[in-house]
């Protein structure tokens, strides 16, 4: 069974009396351990698709099944708990909490889950050391570089052992070295720990690393190729 099963998914945005089909009848399956990139121009609907998959937005039609459960049919409370327990998020702007240290940021979702303090502290420390930030545990995001912040964001997304990680343009704000470091890290985590990554990008370097590339255009899948 695929981790993510998308069936005839659509999303219509309505504004100022105009309707836009941001996602239009998409069918897609993502298997466990995939390292998949969704590519396309700005406004092609990549972010909307990821938001629908992540339960951040609700579909106008069709379904997103995760582990067999329809995320669109859940109540708001159920969807929040589902996101917390099953999905990891990496955002374009890092979106770390500026008032928490790197360690506290990574611990945060585990704390929301109610994990014991020792367990989550050990897990957060291990992850941060694994991504090369062992010396930045008690540093707040404002004192970290963009690349370091995005690595902390990846650690936060992985900390609670989600079924998959959604990364929306994770390298958009990074320089080339930080981009390369981050891609290497994500690829390593994917290969060594089998973590499923689904990310949007229009960065050719990211596309090269992906093992499956889905080209998205006008809310529809234009091509879907394995590399």
């Amino acid at each position, binding site marked *: 069974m695929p981790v993510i099963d998308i069936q005839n998914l659509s999303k219509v945005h309505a504004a100022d009396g105009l309707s836009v089909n941001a996602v239009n009848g998409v069918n897609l399956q993502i298997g466990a351990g995939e390292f998949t990139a969704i590519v396309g121009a700005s406004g092609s609907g990549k972010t*909307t698709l990821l*938001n629908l998959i*992540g339960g*951040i*937005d609700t579909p106008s039609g069709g379904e997103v099944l995760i582990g067999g459960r329809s995320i669109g049919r859940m109540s*708001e*409370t159920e969807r*929040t*708990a589902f*996101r*917390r*327990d099953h999905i990891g*998020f990496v*955002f374009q*702007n890092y*979106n770390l*909490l*500026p*008032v*928490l240290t790197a360690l*506290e940021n990574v611990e*945060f*979702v585990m*704390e*929301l*889950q*109610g994990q014991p*303090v020792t367990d989550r502290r050990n897990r957060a420390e291990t992850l941060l050391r694994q991504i090369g930030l062992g010396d930045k545990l008690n540093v707040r995001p404002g004192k970290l570089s963009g690349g370091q912040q995005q690595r902390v964001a990846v650690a*936060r997304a992985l900390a609670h052992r989600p079924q998959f990680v959604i990364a929306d343009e994770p390298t958009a704000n990074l320089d080339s070295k930080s981009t390369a470091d981050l891609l290497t890290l994500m690829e390593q985590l994917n290969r060594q720990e089998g973590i499923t990554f689904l990310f949007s990008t229009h960065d050719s370097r990211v596309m090269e690393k992906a093992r499956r590339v889905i080209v998205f255009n006008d809310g529809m899948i234009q091509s879907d190729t394995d590399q």
Partner: protein
Amino acid sequence: MMNRTLNQMAWRNIWRNKTRSLVFMGAALLGFAVALFTLNTMKAIAAQRLRDAINVQTSDVQVHRKGFVDDHELTYTLPQADALITRLRQTSGVAVVAKRLVVNGVVTAPDNNLVGEIKGVVPRDENRLSVLGDFLVEGGPLTDDGRSPILISRRTADKLHVRLKSKLVITVKAANGDLAGGVFRVVGIFATPSTPFDENTVLVRYNDLAALTGVTAPHELAVKLTNPSQLAEVKAAINAGMPAGTQLDDWKVLLPELFAFDGFINMVGILFTLIISLGLGFSLMNTMNMIVAERTRELGMLRAIGQSRWSVFRMLIAECVLMMLIGAIGGVLLGTVFIGLAARYGIRISEGLGMLGIRPVMYPTLDPALLFVILGLATLLTLLISLVPASRILRLNLAQALKQ
């Protein structure tokens, strides 16, 4: 555990924009300090005015013949007065009973005269019941020694152009209907905070006034209680055995304007505090709106990674309450310091307020209950005001929030 982290985040969030938070907390601090100081000062004014009026003018309770309060008719004396005095003195909760003759008359000096109330009092009892002795500015209190002594106020002395040891003639209506006059010598001059009392009252010995008018039974029994807070209970006990044709009145009836003033002061205090609170409330709402607008993406991210909407909502409320409480606690401390200084050095108030029985210098004291009122008000106000901006979180569109 999560609560601890949320409170910790709320605390750290306060200091993300130090200037804005400090401006708000400073406003709250000053607002609550001024409110506490003003409330306590107004309460102190009301309490002082009440205390002085009761202790000098009326005492806690008075007994009269029915009709005397409305019409000071010379013949409206108390029946069975001696037996009533004995019974009153045996009543539990009664500290002092003093009998008085109260007659309208004319006080004449060589240069001037005035119409006023002549009170005949028993010096020994009156000096235990009244604190008029505390307001003597010249001479001494009435005693059983000497011939026909009289106490007058500084205002009366100035108006009549007399001084200590001057002679005054008092003319009153006697029991037989004729005019009767007597010579009195000024032995003491007082100045109470109450201008009306000072302008209208002179005090002589009971026996001297009785001899002048031919009326021996008292018009009035003034009763001082051991504990003024037991007014209702003692009144009930006294009322149970009152002779027919008499009436018992407490200070609330005898000094209705004072009772009304007390209520007025309380209302002004509440209004003043509400106005300050509303100003702070709008400031808080503005601050909260800015916080929510600035952090929309961050709040959206918190929701996206799994923090419940109510948890985010609670975090924002905690941030508001913390800011307001810091200001309120600081305000309470500063207000307490102000009150301490005022209690030590006094606050000079206009002399003209003597017409209202207000002393020219006030020494406010801190009412601990008001501390809790201020802190409770701050918390309640914050909870109510912060609901509006914080509720925007409940309606947050995650996809839109993350785009910002």
